[in-house]
């Protein structure tokens, strides 16, 4: 029982990441009608924003400390991060420690810009092209982004620690009435889950309660009709693309401590996110979120030793299996609407 | 006993009775029009006839066999061809190929793995297709890509694609909807011509009275999902019930 709950919890943060990427994919698909294979790359850019922030914050000036000597007897050179010399030792160290959450300052402008540039520079020209072309051009873009990241950051995963206060784990089992040390759960994963829930809630609230969101929802339901109303839907869609990019970027940024970013991260998550979108039902936002969590949890449950003892390695293929079964029994996905991508 | 017999067909969509106890008999070798005001259930009826919708009750028999539950391609293989409101053609293929495909479908059935034979060696098929194109005055357009033609020509091509299969029943779904006056006249002429030359049984679903009265030999008036009257055109024209149905619509 306790093991089951632990796996359920483990599935939550992975599911949250899937849900966030799938949410952005669905927004883009629903509003712009574009299948974006570069969305995983946006997730990755977010993660690398966190890496960049960490590096920026540890930029240092070299100070020669005459009071100390190194082993050769020369004055010791000490690297003093600028943030520490500007804000004082304690505050500076704290800022550095909190680099991942602080990267939000970097992620939002970067992602808005990337989203805007992608939509205006590339995607815009593909609204009227076949889906196959959209897939192909964004696939090419995903390769290019991955390779650019590789050129700047190398091919190895880069450790990006979470703040010390949020590192480590808590014993959730005690609170739930289990014995101590049965359900140990990483603090950062809990943070991630609540962060994701907050973002998802924010996106839904935005779509539900703002005029902008209303127009976008109308556009998702019937693009042509809204076009006839004379609303400049395209401009709003550009903004929507930026928002979707932000959601993916934020998801990636916060995921950096859980999975060290590397240049293939985008591709790894993309394939699974697409499966999530399709399982949820192309064009359905609640479906994307639901499917994200369901698949995350299913994957986590199937990685239990008890399950793996029966079918080894099932955790690696379970998502695909579930996807295939769902698509065959419910061709439109869990919450897909009729008429979306039927042709 | 007609070639197409519709008996006691009912279809509900939620609370809406789209078709209520429809009985209809299309006699062989006639042009039978089904008319009615908007929302009378014409399209629903057509979709039942081609297997796209399954009625809640009732039967649809074509030449003694039920069409219910069959897929569109099976119904076509039984001998029913359909012309759509907006022409459905193979837009990326040449006019000639558009007509060749139904020839093959007629000869080889729903599927045949003829992957090695050359299309150009199928002389019989080619002759049939060319004769058909001649018939509809499109022989000179045989190598055009179908999508590059005018709407009227597309309609003509679609007609040719149906006729080349020599169907026993041709279903036409508002064949002149959205057409310019001249195109409508042309289509009427084309249909009259086909009727005269080939004597094909047709069932037309139509809104345009002009088209109906210049073609139909028998008319069924549908209102609120139920057949109101069925008679020859001359009688329908002055029929009080029909006037009521249409005038009722006009007042709204």
């Amino acid at each position: 029982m306790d093991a089951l709950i632990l796996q359920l919890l483990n599935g939550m943060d992975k599911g949250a990441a899937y849900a966030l990427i799938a949410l952005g994919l669905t927004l883009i698909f629903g509003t712009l009608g574009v299948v974006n294979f570069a969305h995983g790359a946006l997730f990755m850019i977010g993660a690398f924003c966190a890496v960049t922030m960490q590096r920026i914050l540890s930029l240092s000036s070299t100070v020669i400390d005459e009071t100390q000597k190194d082993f050769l007897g020369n004055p010791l050179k000490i690297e003093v991060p600028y943030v520490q010399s500007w804000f004082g030792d304690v505050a500076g160290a704290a800022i550095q420690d909190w680099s991942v959450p602080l990267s939000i300052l970097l992620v939002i402008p970067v992602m808005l810009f990337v989203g805007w540039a992608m939509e205006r520079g590339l995607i815009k020209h593909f609204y009227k092209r076949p889906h196959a072309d959209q897939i192909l051009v964004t696939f090419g873009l995903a390769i290019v982004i991955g390779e650019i990241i590789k050129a700047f950051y190398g091919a190895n995963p880069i450790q990006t620690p979470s703040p010390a206060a949020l590192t480590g784990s808590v014993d959730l089992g005690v609170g739930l009435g289990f014995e101590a040390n049965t359900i140990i759960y990483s603090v950062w994963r809990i943070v991630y889950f609540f962060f994701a829930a907050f973002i998802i809630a924010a996106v839904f609230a935005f779509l539900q309660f703002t005029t902008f969101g209303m127009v976008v929802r109308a556009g998702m339901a019937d693009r042509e009709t809204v076009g006839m109303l004379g609303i400049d839907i395209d401009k709003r869609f550009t903004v929507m693309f930026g928002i979707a990019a932000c959601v993916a970027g934020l998801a990636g940024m916060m995921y950096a401590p859980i999975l060290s970013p590397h240049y293939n991260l985008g591709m790894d998550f993309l394939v699974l996110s697409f499966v999530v979108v399709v399982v949820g039902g192309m064009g359905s936002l609640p479906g994307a979120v639901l499917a994200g969590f369901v698949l995350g949890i299913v994957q986590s449950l199937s990685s239990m030793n008890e399950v793996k003892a029966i079918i080894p390695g099932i955790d690696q293929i379970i998502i695909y299996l579930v996807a295939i079964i769902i698509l065959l029994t419910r061709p439109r996905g869990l919450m897909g609407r009729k008429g979306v991508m039927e042709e | 006993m007609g070639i197409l017999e519709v008996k006691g067909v009912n279809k509900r969509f939620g609370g809406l009775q789209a078709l209520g106890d429809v009985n209809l008999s299309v006699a062989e070798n006639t042009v039978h029009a089904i008319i009615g005001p908007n929302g009378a259930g014409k399209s629903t009826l057509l979709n039942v006839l081609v297997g796209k919708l399954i009625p809640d009750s009732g039967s649809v028999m074509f030449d003694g066999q039920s069409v219910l539950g069959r897929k569109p391609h099976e119904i076509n293989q039984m001998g029913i061809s359909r012309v759509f409101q907006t022409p459905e053609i193979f837009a990326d293929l040449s006019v000639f190929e558009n007509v060749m495909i139904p020839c093959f479908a007629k000869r080889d059935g729903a599927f045949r793995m003829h992957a090695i034979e050359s299309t150009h060696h199928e002389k019989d098929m080619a002759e049939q297709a060319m004769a058909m194109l001649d018939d509809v005055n499109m022989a000179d357009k045989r190598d055009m890509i179908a999508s590059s033609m005018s709407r009227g020509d597309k309609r003509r091509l679609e007609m040719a694609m149906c006729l080349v299969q020599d169907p026993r029943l041709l279903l036409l779904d508002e064949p002149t909807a959205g057409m310019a006056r001249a195109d409508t006249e042309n289509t009427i002429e084309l249909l009259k011509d086909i009727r005269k030359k080939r004597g094909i049984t047709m069932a037309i679903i139509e809104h345009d009275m002009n088209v109906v009265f210049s073609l139909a030999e028998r008319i069924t008036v549908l209102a609120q999902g139920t057949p109101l009257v069925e008679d020859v055109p001359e009688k329908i024209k002055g029929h009080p019930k029909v006037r009521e149905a249409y005038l009722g619509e006009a007042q709204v």
Partner: protein
Amino acid sequence: MLGLNSRDFRLFLIVCALCVFAPILLNPFPVASSLGESFNAGYPALMQRFVIFGLLVIGFNILFGLTGYLSFGHAAFLGVGSFAAVWMFKLLSYNVVPAIILSVVVAGLFSVVIGYIALRRSGIYFSILTLAFAQMMYSIAFSDLVGKLFGTIVTNGETGLQVYNDDPQILMSEGSPTVPHLFGLEMNSAFTWKVGGWEFVFQNGYYLSAIFMILGFYLSIRIFRSPFGMMLRAIKSNQTRMSYTGLDTKPYMLAAFVISGMYAGLAGGLLAAMDPLTGAERMFWTASGEIVVMAILGGVGTLVGPVLGAGVIKYLENIVSKINDSILHNWFAFMPDWLENLMVTVIHPFIGKGWHLTLGLLFMAVVIFLPGGLMQLGEKIATLFGRKKKSDDAKSGATEPAE
């Protein structure tokens, strides 16, 4: 000739001739020259890739080019074919015939099952279903899940599958070769012809692969010109009209899918026959993506486009990844130093290990500017050089008299 019309037959002959003389045509520079080092492509390992990937993309084009169904998981069939072939080497002997036959059969079986399921959906759903299947198969192969399930080795996981000394090889007799061979004709043995500074290598393995590619090319022409091919194009054009014309689209689609899966299996078998080891990375989805790139670059739905696309990509991959900074410095030596260094710095990210960056950019450029691929580019250039040729072509292409 051979059941082809004159225009197709000419094309077929050209492809045959190119295949036969490739070892000479692809080695235009003397071996020792710097141009030769960078640009010669006439060595067996690379030429094998040209024809094998050409074959693979020809098959892919039958599915994507004719029906418009974009499969994003074709590399899976390639991998399955390779594994089947290596298993034949392990169990029977190094003779390539059973290996190649089994690779086609196994890939065919897999594509029947996957196609049957994936083809229940169309458009983007189909692409993602094939992608999901391929990723699943990759995971299974990469961790050898089947092997683990039965406590044995099937794909041998990360290590990859190869032939070991203690394998049964029940058909191996004393003197038979210990490398893949065709009834004694060893795949990797070659005849080298030296003329002046030039060196031309004629290798058995290359020619065997080339024969298969030519056969595959011939079959694809026949399919393109057959009623079956016409039906597939009709499916791409309008499925509604297809079914209201009395045609069942499903078996046509499945047949196309299986045919292209078998092409991929054959290509996989040939890869294994050239080099008898294989690993799961061959099935990774970026490999599937590369197949799509080749098809698009060459020209989807054209006859020679796929071969062209496969050749260009494999050639570029080869030379681009070979070029390094010192070669660049040599090239730009005539420039003033500052310009030379600038050029090298600018080009540096795209060469060597940057091949994938170049590939991605090339990919985007083709989709954006040349959706018809190199074949379309060729046509455009042809029209530039005179209208007459174009109208000639159009005439002979469209109004083909029944021979």
